[in-house]
């Protein structure tokens, strides 16, 4: 299956298992979603469980909060992650806080699914990677899978979680490749990174589309320069799996962090800071950040300049190696 099918399968499994699971969003019903992620579910589960909403992101999240508090398990879709900004206040002032502000009485077990990331020559605001802001605002879990198998297992965990989870889906990977994915449900735990590849000389930490770019760069460096790279797919962006990162860095002593979102106060900064705090004496070089720049995600003619690519990651690796 490709990632679209894997996500669809996760939704299907969970809707079957738990009748409180309800999908809502723009075009998720009859149309099956603009990426066809929810294809077939409207027909199978009906208009009460796959809800085509009016065009209003604030309310898609706002209603989900009330639905979740009242015992449903809403899985909301925001059509592109650049449009989650309309629901920012609902997410950070309400979804993220209701458990705390009610002394644990009310909870918000909702999932917000939203396509993210660039590289597909999309229109403005259709290529955002904004995981850092949602990780900075306390109370939200943030997940980004990098492949079909992961996507299904992580989404099932997200749906079963008792916390609000933002589940970002890298558009570029939706149909980029297929993996063996069971039709039956399985969980991949939130908060655990995946060691994509072991290595000795340098640790590359990335996620989403950039995980694949990192893997390619790693292979190239290994084949052409004999640099042994360990590659970590973070998968859960909040909370991050610090243990896996630190263990790897203690082994390699060198780090490159690769992500698409802007650099300034991004997740790369957090990971770098934690590594220095917890493993500075193991470091042979400063953690190197290879990231999107501190500009709006550009119009597509220049997006190739914006995105980290194999060459940029290799420059990063060389910086780490030759410090």
């Amino acid at each position, binding site marked *: 299956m490709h990632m679209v099918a894997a996500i669809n399968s996760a939704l299907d499994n969970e809707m079957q298992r738990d009748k409180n699971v309800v999908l809502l969003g723009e075009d998720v019903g009859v149309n099956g979603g603009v990426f066809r992620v929810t294809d077939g579910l409207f027909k199978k589960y009906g208009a009460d469980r796959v809800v085509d909403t009016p065009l209003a992101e604030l*309310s898609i999240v706002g209603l989900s909060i009330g639905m979740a508090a009242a015992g449903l398990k809403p899985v909301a879709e925001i059509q592109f992650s650049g449009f989650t900004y309309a629901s920012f206040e609902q997410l950070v002032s309400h979804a993220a806080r209701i458990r*705390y502000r009610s002394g644990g009485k009310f909870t918000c077990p909702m999932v917000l699914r939203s396509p993210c990331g660039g590289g597909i020559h999309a229109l403005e605001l259709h290529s955002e990677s904004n995981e850092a802001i949602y990780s900075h605002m306390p109370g939200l879990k943030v997940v980004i899978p990098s492949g079909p198998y992961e996507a299904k297992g992580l989404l099932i965990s997200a749906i079963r979680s008792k916390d609000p989870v933002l589940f970002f889906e890298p558009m570029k990977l939706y149909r980029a490749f297929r993996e063996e994915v069971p039709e039956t449900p399985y969980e991949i735990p939130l908060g655990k990174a995946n060691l994509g590849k072991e290595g000795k000389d340098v640790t590359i930490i990335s996620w989403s589309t950039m995980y694949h770019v990192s893997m390619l760069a790693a292979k190239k460096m290994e084949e052409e320069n004999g640099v042994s790279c360990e590659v970590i797919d973070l998968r859960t962006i909040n909370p991050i799996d610090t243990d896996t990162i630190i263990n790897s860095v203690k082994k390699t002593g060198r780090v490159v962090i690769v992500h698409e979102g802007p650099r300034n106060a991004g997740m790369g900064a957090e990971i770098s800071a934690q590594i220095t705090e917890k493993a500075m004496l193991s470091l042979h070089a400063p953690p190197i950040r290879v990231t999107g720049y501190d500009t709006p995600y550009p119009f597509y003619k220049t997006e190739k300049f914006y995105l980290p690519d194999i060459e940029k990651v290799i420059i990063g690796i060389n910086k780490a190696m030759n410090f």
Partner: protein
Amino acid sequence: MDENGKVTGEMPKLTNDEIKELYKKMVTIRVYDDKTMKIQRQGRVGPYISYLGQEACQVGIAASLRKDDWFFPTYRDSGALYARGMPLKDVLLYWMGDARGFANAGNNFPICIPVGTHPPHAAGAAFAAKIKGKDYVSLATFGDGATSRGDFYEAMNFAGVFNLPVIFVVQNNQWAISVPRSRQTASQTIAQKAISAGIDGVVADGNDIFSVIKAIRYAADKARSGKGATVIELLTYRLGDHSSADDQKKYREQAEVETWKKKEPVERLKKYMLSKGLWSEKFEQDITAEATQAAEKAITDAENIPSQKLDELFENIFSEMTPNLKEELEELKEAYKDRSTESTNKVEKIEGSFP
């Protein structure tokens, strides 16, 4: 009911005992409010928001709902929460800056602080009723100012499209801090905003508890029988300052306040009851004494609850404490190893910021 407690329209179905009970509740919540204001001024409560003058709205809303209905209040609705059965002690905890206030709140959502952001939550809870086939209704209340926020219109629109069992109650108390109703919107009534969502809008006299009850009952019956959402505009008036940090003299004519004082809801119901032989000095004294006693006990109880440990800062963020929170907790413990790790129930005086 006019200013003199004379019934002018049709009465809602209420027994004399029920009417007396309503009056008792209104007096009780006024006592609570008054007591809270007093201890606020003594520095025993932080910023507090009084509902003085809006008691008919507060009690009327609560009295027209079932216990299993969902209620989404604002900062100005402590009175409605009491009338819904929440103990004064719990509500006081909230105002005392204690996150445990709503831990046993029934179907009462915690007070909404960002103005106007909760109508979508009420619509969501109503959607859940519909999907789960339950017959509870969901009611959000908010002020005239809140009706300028997009969230309100969006929630109404969803309620219209999905025919949700939800009631949006606007307590139009004529002011949003210093901004008068006339500056808030050019629409003639606030109720007419419902037209934008194709749902019903109703205006009622918010200082006449009978009028309030009729309106809410109408909307609740309608919602429960699958006929959808209603916006109710309750015309009322905030008699006091916006909050304990506000000075209403800065922005409004005191003559206006005086005019509205004559229409205030408790006195009005009293006049009605007097005319029906339902009120006596003794009755007034009894209920006031009872409320005062209860208030004093609740205040003592609230002030004497066990303090909070610093651990609690990290609880109820997620269903389980995440690794970074655990680490931060350890850090905090280290920082407090020579200090008390418990909160005090005293509000430390803070100089400054507010004028």
